[in-house]
């Protein structure tokens, strides 16, 4: 089981819940499961989010493999200037 | 008002053009003569990106009418290098990394050359105040000022009093 945490607006759209236990092997599995658990969150997940895995930020790394040892954070999609 | 026929000298060459009375010299240079080295950053004389000299006087070409240029000597960035030999200021800007995006660079070079022609040994304060009419958003001015001051020092060493 993967421990997945949500940040900011994403937790708000997940009914205020910010931590989930999810069965999956990669980021795509996690996003799919979250979308099913929290329908209000799904459109934001589809549009794109940033994922932090052990402190490293990923944008759209859907097949990045995940293990229960990873620290996984789903954050709003970010962009710079 | 009809178009005006102007004959002038640009970078040492005789140039003729026709322009409307309300066209700026900058518009003429860029759109009629294809000399796009001078840039329009604001059109109101605030940024200096369009700097040229007219009879040795530093001006914003966006504030000069194309129709006023007849019979004068205009120097633009295109004439600053001597063939493939860069002016010491141009070389210095490259070596000091005194440009990032480069849009303000032609204006700064024309303005800096104008300064060194008048004052071959400027202090840092004099350089900063002379160049206060040229806006740069990328560099924070640090390397530009160093480039100008080092050029002045070099030119003094080489005994070049005339920066032209």
């Amino acid at each position: 089981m993967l421990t997945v945490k949500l940040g900011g607006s994403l937790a708000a759209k997940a009914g205020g819940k910010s931590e989930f236990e999810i069965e999956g092997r990669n980021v795509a599995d996690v996003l799919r499961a979250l979308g099913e658990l929290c329908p209000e969150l799904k459109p934001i997940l589809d549009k794109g989010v940033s994922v932090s895995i052990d402190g490293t930020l990923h944008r759209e790394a859907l097949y990045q493999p995940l293990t229960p040892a990873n620290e996984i954070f789903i954050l709003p999609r970010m962009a710079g200037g | 008002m009809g178009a005006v026929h102007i004959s002038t000298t640009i970078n040492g060459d005789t140039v003729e053009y026709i322009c409307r009375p309300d066209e700026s010299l900058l518009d003429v240079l860029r759109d009629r003569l294809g000399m796009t080295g001078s840039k329009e950053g604001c059109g109101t004389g605030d940024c200096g990106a369009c700097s040229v000299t007219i009879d040795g006087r530093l001006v914003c070409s966006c504030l000069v009418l194309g129709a006023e240029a007849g019979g004068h000597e205009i120097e633009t960035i295109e004439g600053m290098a001597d063939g493939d030999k860069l002016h010491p200021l141009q070389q210095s800007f490259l070596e000091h990394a005194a440009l990032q995006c480069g849009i303000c660079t032609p204006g700064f070079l024309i303005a800096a050359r104008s300064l060194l022609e008048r004052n071959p040994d400027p202090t840092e304060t004099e350089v900063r105040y002379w160049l206060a009419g040229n806006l740069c958003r990328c560099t924070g001015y640090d390397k530009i000022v160093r480039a100008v001051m080092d050029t002045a020092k070099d030119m003094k060493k080489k005994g070049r009093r005339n920066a032209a």
Partner: protein
Amino acid sequence: MPLDTKPNVIPTTFKTVGTRPVRPDGVDKVTGRARFGADMQAPGMLVGRVLRSPHAHARIVKIDTSKAEALPGVKAVITSKDMPAQEGCDMDVLTNVMARDKALYDGHAVAAVAAVDAAVARKALKLIKVDYKVLPHVTDVDEAMKPDAPILHAHIEHEYQQDLLETAGHVKGKKERTLPKGKRPSNIAGRYEFGHGDIKKGFAEADVIVEHEFTTEATHQGYIEPHACLASVSSDGWAEMWVCTQGHFMVRDVCAKLLGLDVSRLRVTASEIGGGFGGKTTVFIEPVALALSRKAGKPVKIVMSREEVFRATGPTSSASMKVKIGAKRDGTFTAADAILKFQGGAFPGSPVEMGAMCAFACYDLRNVRIIGYDVVTNRPKQAAYRAPGAPMAAFAVEACVGELSEKLKMDAIDIRLKNAAKEGTVSSYGPTFGPVGLVETLQAAKAHKNYKVKLGPNQGRGVASGFWFNFGGQTCTTLNLNSDGTLGLAVGTPDIGGSRASMCLMAAEELGIAYDDVRTIVADTGSLGYNDISEGSRVTFSSGLATINAARDCKKKLCQRAAMIWGIPEEAVEWKDGHARPAGANAGNFEPLSIKELAAKASGTGGPIAGHFEVNADGAGPSFATHVVDVEVDPETGAMKVLRYLVVQDAGKAIHPDYVEGQFQGGAVQGIGWVLNEEYIYGADGRLQNPGFLDYRIPVCSDVPMIDTVIVEVPNPGHPYGVRGVGETSIVPPLAAVANAVSAAMGVRATTLPMSPPKVLAALENKMRKAAD
């Protein structure tokens, strides 16, 4: 394509990387030969001009373009009717590019013309008749949050909680009013919360608590080059565009979507760009130029005026903030709380979330909460400005840290060292940090000679730290070996800060050849796979990583050719110092082959040699910085002089130190402008009062001193050479550092930006009056 799974061994010594050669595009830029957005011409080209709303908020009842269309020399006139909504397109972007049923800000585009010259185009604009029904407007973020504010978008709704009504001033000074429960139309587009722990408990543990409200005004990126593009659509639907942009692949994809074109039918070339800083990471005139060209059947060039740039591109947000930090007597922070309210112009999407995530990022906090509100107002739609959202948030937080250090009589750097985020710190926005360099920057700042200078009367010193995430992204590069042994490197990230030089350095380093033997170009969208925008401080990291890997691909192929020539297995050949050589005595006694020799033999050994790499780059590492600034205030005029400025920032590995220093210095001076002078000034009529460089005054040469820099290098394990992006972090600390310095000089806390002379004078007078009482 996944990255090599071998662990990344970062070299500790470099041959070419870290040197300071002249950039490859340099001569063109100092001679005026380089071509920027407005420098391109096309045969038969028309001039495009945009008609813009003079009202901050108005319903567009009717647009009559008939007289304009009839004017001789006018070849096309368009309105939103010519840009119908396409399936899946971003409606906010489309509506911002061309107003549909409402004009939402002073300067909002409502129509456009293409004519044979500028004079005819100007006349044609005057002949377009627009019937507006003027509506009440709102430009201030706090005003816009009130439940009774003029509403911009009927579909945006928010449920007001009691605490928000208080924050929004709804009940301030009045008898408490209650609103019916549930969502109602609002200008509040979103509420976001980050943090962890228990702030109530944390504040209870504090010996000292500092709390302030802050406001900052909107500023513009201020690039000297106005937006410009030249679009050409032919009758068979193929299109080309020349444009100054930070992302030509983005321009292609967004414009194709908005206009209903196939992406592959639009080829976009990025010109040299005269500054962007985030303001050119989206589209404004580009879809309009394409639509005009499509209708007129001729190329159309649109160049924005400076006034249009201010009124109708993407300034950053103005902000209203409240920050509270509690600390123990020994300086340890026990709790931190922030409420950030950002207005992002007429559409949702202010960078308040990123501001919220960055606000306390420099600190190791057990108890922290940040709430952000995204608010719409009748102002132009904001665009990114170098670390979007972070400078304002850092200003508020670092001002409170500064005050804590004064109250606790602790050195400003020591209090930050005590609480500094390090490797293993749980960040305030959630994830745990890997190796980061904040402590190193604080230590280097403390050791610097600037920190030891004794201050005189009316002088003050300010310190601030800052952070930016830095991003990776989609990147493709191709490295072609020419027959003479030189290399042509094609990247897809527009060069906004001198990156071509860094690419050449990295390719030369990897191949063991001279810097001058590599030439880098920014290729058009037809020549490479997708490249994300040059933003997020990603270019040296992403295109650099891709360049290094493309060079490794090239080396492999060069070794294969050598193996072929020598008749030995591939594995028996290695690349060293720019040559293929037998890997060990058993491989055979062959003279090493140089890259030039192999290039000459390429056609005989199988054909041209090239390396390439396509990736969605991950592993960008954050960059931390500490700034120290000394300011002198003139108590009679309120004028401020920056005496000394020091930037210490972690670059991971500085590929070309001159351009890393350049980023430090440029960001610092933009920050100085933001804190001392720059602001968007709106009149009671909702119109922008200062859309020009005279009254929107950015720093000039005489305003600033030399900017001292120190490059710290804590390598980023995610990049082959340890690179961290540096471009954005440099604008995060200056607002706070300068404001703290001014506060120290005045003896009064600066809480409103810009701290322009009238405000400084008012603060000083207020202080004297208070002292007299």
